[in-house]
């Protein structure tokens, strides 16, 4: 039998994702430094980013609210390894519950010393207050918020 071979392959496929009326309005809001959510009148949850329907009550959401750009860090991780095709390390990501929102969402945590992993629990804590740092140039993207920094 001959020695098995490998041949190279690559998927390069382009897409365009529809952002829908709710996320589109949210992204437009970010341009104006406004963070918008939708409120469920049945369970009173405030979803940020906004949703078209409440996943618990299974009803359409029609009431919009604006929440603050400050919030609470629920948990965080720090990426130290370069994964091919993904952002360059090191960087921190957190689950952040904005003041006025019911549930956490995902974003970068910045202005934090990530050089010593063993010190991270002293630097970032569950329950810590954070604030959004906005990009000067905003294009209607989740990255119009550059990151959240500890308060």
């Amino acid at each position, binding site marked *: 039998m001959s020695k098995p071979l490998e041949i190279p392959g690559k998927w390069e496929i382009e897409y365009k994702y529809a952002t829908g009326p709710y996320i589109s309005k949210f992204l437009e809001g970010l341009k104006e430094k406004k963070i918008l959510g939708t409120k469920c009148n049945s369970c009173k949850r405030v979803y940020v980013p906004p949703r078209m329907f409440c996943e618990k009550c299974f009803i359409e959401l029609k009431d919009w609210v604006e929440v603050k750009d400050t919030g609470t860090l629920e*948990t965080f*991780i720090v990426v130290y390894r370069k994964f091919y095709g*993904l*952002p360059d390390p090191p960087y921190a990501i957190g689950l952040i519950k904005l003041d006025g929102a019911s549930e956490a*969402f*995902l974003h970068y945590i910045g202005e934090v010393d990530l050089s010593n992993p063993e010190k991270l629990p002293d630097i970032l*804590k569950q329950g810590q207050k954070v604030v959004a740092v906005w990009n000067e140039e905003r294009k209607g993207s989740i990255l119009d918020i550059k990151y959240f920094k500890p308060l």
Partner: protein
Amino acid sequence: MKKVAIIGVGLTKTGRRNDVTHQELVWEAVKSALNDAELEIDDIDAIIYGTMDNFDGISSPERFDSIALGCGRGNGKPLMKITTGGTTGISLALAAYYHIASGLYDTVLAVGVQKVGENVEAQQVLNTAVEPILEKTFGLGAIHAAAFQASRYKSTYKKNIEDYMCKVAINNRKNALRNPFAHLKLNITDEDYYSSPYLVWPLRLLDSCPSSDGAVAIIFSSSEFAKKHSENPAWIKGLGYISDSYWWGTKSIEFWDNLAILSRRVFRMAKISDPLKEIDVAELYNAFTIQEIMEYEAIGLAKKGEGWKLLEEDITSFHGSLPVCPSGGILSTNPIAASGLIRVAEAALQVMGKAGERQIAGVKTAIAHAWGGALQFHGLMVLSNE
């Protein structure tokens, strides 16, 4: 509903299997299961096949793997393809069970295959499963989700949880030394663990599963067929599947609420009231060390926030009273869509007494588990020798 048994198991060697094509790897597993059950391909009524296409860089590989499943013989066998992420393998086992319990078929061949080693970076593939508008940009894969669990567990329940993650890392890699079908075989120490680099804090390289190529095939049958063709089948006593929200904020990160609900349902079906005493072996889906500890708690082997205590008392090691993953687990071998079905295969081999060097003495009841999605899906199965 009809009773359902497992009458044949076929595992392949795992690791980087660049000695065979996708199709050839499937055939290897299928032939091995048929040999184990002493059956021919024409004895099989229906086929359930699963893979997660984009890891292997082939859309719908069932199109050409079909011939390795016996579908090219012109006898018109039904073929169902299942793709449910990390739970794919256990979904295959559940689907095989439903096919037979319904009375529609007597024999079903379930096959899981994956060649994760065929892609350059598994986390890049996993990132294609992340919500594309708001979350994908942060570069998340599976390890990032598990790192959130570890970070949250650490700050909620146990500051030094890594000292117990270390034990999980060592136990599983040592168990794999006994398993000829395992990928990673590492005889590691505490020192190796603590010098292992962080990939995504708090998870180190040794907290994480490898990228494996591998396949597994299991033959399920009705009790009538099993009584005629098998001296020593494994019987399915309980099973189930549970789902939860995609979104991070909607579910608890440090405790697997939905696995706890599923376990109660499945153990009620299997008439298990004290899982720690009544289960002899548990094959859990421990893709990352922290998850094995969280699974102890959700399955009811330990109280919430106290799963690490089982490791302190060595209960879940190979010689403990409830060995977890004597196969070496996902931490040693992870051909993703096959991994859940490998858990079922290992649990079946244990109750049949056919697990070779990794056999635990006197196993009557074993469980197999898998998680998938954005930490949101679980499947669970209870197997017994009676």
